């Protein structure tokens, strides 16, 4: 914990005092201090016949790929994008995605077996049915909020789409860093959402001229826990 605190202090120092300051900027870092993603106990596809089903992915988990960061509330102009959640090796890739409202998400199937992607979320409910490898279906997300995505045929497949009401969203870099620029001065609610740990919210004030730093420790470490 000493090392962690020291590192955070060094990082904050470097960000606050050694970088040139820009108006309306949030610089942050996400630190996932322990493995949070539960390992899956997936058996071979014993209940199906036909072409061999792909084995579930066995690569290592990078917890930072399971985090998105965004600002809450309406801030300026929204710029819809086109994003993708792929079905590969009986997993959604990525398992968490942030897009601004109005965006379109494509769900290509890369497996030689069918999936049946669906959501019953209030923000957007859909059922994409069956479609073969190499083809895709798209869904447009017009309302902000969280959309849980599942597969009818593989109950352990799940993904989360966070639809934001603004253009300030990011997936942390491999080092955990993220940055929001061009923000008007004021108070902002910054959210870091880890697919397994849930969301952490921080209120920060962005000055008229300069940058503000924020650090998210996932899972949240309370003062009591520090002692």
């Amino acid at each position: 914990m000493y090392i962690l605190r020291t590192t955070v202090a060094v990082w904050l120092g470097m960000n606050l005092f050694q970088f040139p300051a820009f108006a309306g900027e949030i610089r942050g870092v996400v630190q996932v201090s322990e493995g949070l993603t539960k390992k899956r106990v997936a058996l071979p596809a014993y209940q199906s016949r036909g072409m061999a089903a792909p084995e579930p992915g066995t690569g290592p988990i990078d917890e930072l790929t399971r985090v998105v960061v965004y600002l809450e509330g309406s801030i300026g102009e929204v710029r819809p994008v086109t994003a993708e959640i792929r079905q590969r090796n009986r997993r959604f890739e990525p398992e968490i995605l942030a897009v601004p409202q109005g965006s379109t998400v494509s769900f290509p199937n890369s497996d030689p077996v069918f999936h049946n992607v669906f959501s019953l979320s209030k923000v957007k409910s859909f059922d994409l049915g069956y479609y073969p490898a190499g083809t895709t279906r798209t869904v447009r997300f017009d309302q902000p909020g969280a959309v849980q995505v599942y597969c009818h045929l593989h109950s352990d497949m799940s993904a989360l789409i966070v639809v934001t009401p603004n253009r300030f969203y990011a997936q942390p870099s491999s080092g955990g860093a993220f940055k929001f620029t061009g923000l008007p001065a004021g108070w902002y609610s910054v959210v870091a959402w880890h697919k397994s740990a849930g969301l952490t919210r921080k209120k920060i004030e962005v000055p008229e001229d300069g940058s503000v730093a924020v650090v998210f420790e996932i899972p949240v470490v309370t003062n009591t826990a520090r002692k």
Partner: protein
Amino acid sequence: MRTAILLLSCALAPWGLAQEADYGVALPATLSAGGMYSHAWEQATPTAGPLEPGFQLMVYPSLKLGEHWYVYSALDVNLSPYYPFQADSATNRLEFYVIQAFAAYHRAKGSRSLTVKAGQLSSAFGSFPLRYDDTVNPLLGAPATYGAPSYGNFPVTLYGLPGVEADASLGRLDARVQLTNSSPANPKNILQNGQAANWTAGAGYSIRQGFRVGMSVNHGPYLQVGRFLLPSENASQWPFTAAGVDGQWEKGRVAINGEWQRFYYLYPRYIISPVIKYGYIEPKVVLNPRLYVACRFGYESFSDFQTNSMAEPAELTPNRQVTEVAFGYRINRAQLLKVGYEWPHHDGTLNSHNNILGVQLVTSINAISAAFH
């Protein structure tokens, strides 16, 4: 300086963990509860009313023992009658069955896979024994030839058989062969008398993703002493032979399953042995993310038979049609409400006495799963 920050941040980045556990235990379950409204059981159980509540709890304890080995089971606790195929009587019975409990070795590489199983297995005959779970079966009941665990009622049990099985797939082709201790028409547990080896084999070809055709055969002794067989007679002289073809087609929000089967029963002292043919087609259409409708149209035909004491052949029983329809409403990700209606009737009759209205609330429970390391 930015490089230093990056290195520092990377040093704090979490370590990589494997996504899949090589060793672990999982305990998924399906609880299905509801009831049937019918007069089908009036004759067998005159004291019972037309409404019969029931439930089925399916628990699937599974153990993963490394990259290739696993243990899988399907345990059934139910209060019957709960399914239309149990509606011949309203005598409430709390029953427990080990439908599957096997150890397996599995290897897969690319489009090739091989699985060898030993233990209590679902019958490898036909395609419905893969779909008995209420979350998978879109209707309330089973096709007319699948059903109860006892001798004499249905040609294919849904309650498992002790045996060994090998499943293989190579590209678009899949095949399976199963050796069991008894016939799917007369399932016996490993401690019962009258066990006799039965063979089942099947194969399929995936014409394209979502369109597969298959076939299967079963052959072996099934008669038991006391019913058609004298103590001095050998059951293997009068085997049971089943042959069937099946197909699955899926595209978009439509899925169609279908089977056609022929069952040939040999009996001692019969000049003409009976043949039963059965076919069904089962379309399912997703109307919106929460609602689907499914139907099953089945037709069962019975040949004539003649024993050596009969002067001429006689009709075994009138041919039978069974039509089922069900609506499924997804309350949430884990819960499905099914409302269905079944019209069974024999040729030449329009009797609604055996019609069944059923409701099932199906809940999937996936909470328990633990990796060992």
